């Protein structure tokens, strides 16, 4: 079974508003890393929101076509149920962080799964260690820098251990060491069979992807191997 199936997906935020996604279809197999690129405003973040069910459940809007994550139709499942399948890391970590300490932030989701306290502790330690942020454990997320906040948001999602990750420009504010850590984590997760869809602009980050999808004005205009698609896209932009 495909991890992600997007079938003739169109979407707009208001019934009379601009069409953000236009008749998009693609599939992602388990264990694949797929990068989603395109000029700003082309619909990349909207597509991530559709994968997690935020659209249509929270933001409303008009959605036609179908999105399946691990076979589940996002329209038929609640966002909380979909969160067990798809870990969504938002572009702006401030919209995601709310707990008084980094540790609480990462423990929140596993605690809500009613996992035993010992298992929650193990997951929190593992995530803090993997991301290299153990020293921030007792810090209030509001006091962190932009890049550190993104690492914590990423940690909170990793602690849920979803089989699919949708990452919206999580590397954008990270320093080179942070980028290297996340790249390594993503490659490890792929080895474990996890599926990753990431929105990125940085060609270096995109190069770890197996496939690259290019969106333009809401349409999927390219879908192919990273090396080929990146080269074509950059020459298209002439930069």
């Amino acid at each position, binding site marked *: 079974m495909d991890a992600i199936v997007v079938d003739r997906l169109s979407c707009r935020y208001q019934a009379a508003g601009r069409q953000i996604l236009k008749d998009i279809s693609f599939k992602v197999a388990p264990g694949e890393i797929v990068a989603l690129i395109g*000029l700003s*405003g082309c619909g990349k973040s909207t597509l991530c929101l559709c994968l997690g069910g935020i659209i249509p459940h929270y933001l409303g809007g008009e959605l036609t076509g179908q999105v399946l994550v691990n076979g589940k139709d996002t329209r038929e499942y609640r966002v909380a149920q979909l969160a067990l399948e798809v870990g969504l890391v938002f572009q*702006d970590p401030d919209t995601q962080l709310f707990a008084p300490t980094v540790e609480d932030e990462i423990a929140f989701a596993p605690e809500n799964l009613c996992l035993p306290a010992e298992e929650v502790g193990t997951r929190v330690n593992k995530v803090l260690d993997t991301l290299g942020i153990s020293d921030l454990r007792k810090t209030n997320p509001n006091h962190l820098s932009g890049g550190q906040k993104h690492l914590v948001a990423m940690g909170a999602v990793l602690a849920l251990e979803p089989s699919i990750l949708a990452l919206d*420009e999580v590397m954008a*504010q990270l320093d080179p*060491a*942070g980028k290297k850590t996340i790249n390594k984590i993503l490659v490890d997760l792929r080895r474990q069979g996890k599926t990753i869809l990431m929105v990125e*602009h940085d060609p270096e980050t995109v190069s770890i992807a197996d496939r690259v999808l290019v969106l333009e004005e809401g349409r999927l205009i390219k879908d192919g191997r990273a090396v080929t698609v990146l080269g074509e896209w950059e020459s298209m*932009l002439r*930069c």
Partner: protein
Amino acid sequence: MAYIELENVSFCYPGQSRPVLREINLSILNKGVTAITGANGSGKTTLSKLLTGILLPTKGRIKLNGQLLTSLTLTQIGRQIGYVFQNPDKQLFCETVEEEIAFGVRNLGLPPDQAAQKVREVMDYFELTRHAQAYPLSLSAGEKRRLALAAVFALEPGLLLLDEPTTGLDPYRKKLLGDYLDKMLAAGRGVVLISHDQKFINRYATRLMGLQDGQFIEE
């Protein structure tokens, strides 16, 4: 004379024992591009808030054009330093994109026709004209970033302070931003660039400063 001068500046957030910045001495001219790099959490954004008077040093003093920053209002500082925040959401507050850019320009006291011309120019340059009547917070992250940049650039301050300005920008828009910086530099203005974007820094920086453990370790 230095445009901004920091003398033995230290800063510690209330309730924390470890200072974020320690005994910093630094002169910034209003020409060229001073790039400030450093690991996440090294104090880059804190430094930018000190330079704009949003935070006050725990120790030491900062001068802007020879005047103590503490003797100036935020408006007076804002006319001399154009600050684009790391998170554009914290900067946008108007009802429409056009209004957002016009707000600062009108407050400069330009005649209405000149102000309108300026707004049209930057809106056009940053390819925001099609969104002129859109609600700023409904834009995508990259569009919001361009809007925050456009609103500040329209004011033509002596020094631009840009905190991670390339975040969320696609390669094409990054080049547009770079070209605009070249234009500002040619017009005799300076830029302080806080960034992790090594490629962008390599292309535009004329001076490179590295922050580590609250101090500058390299120049």
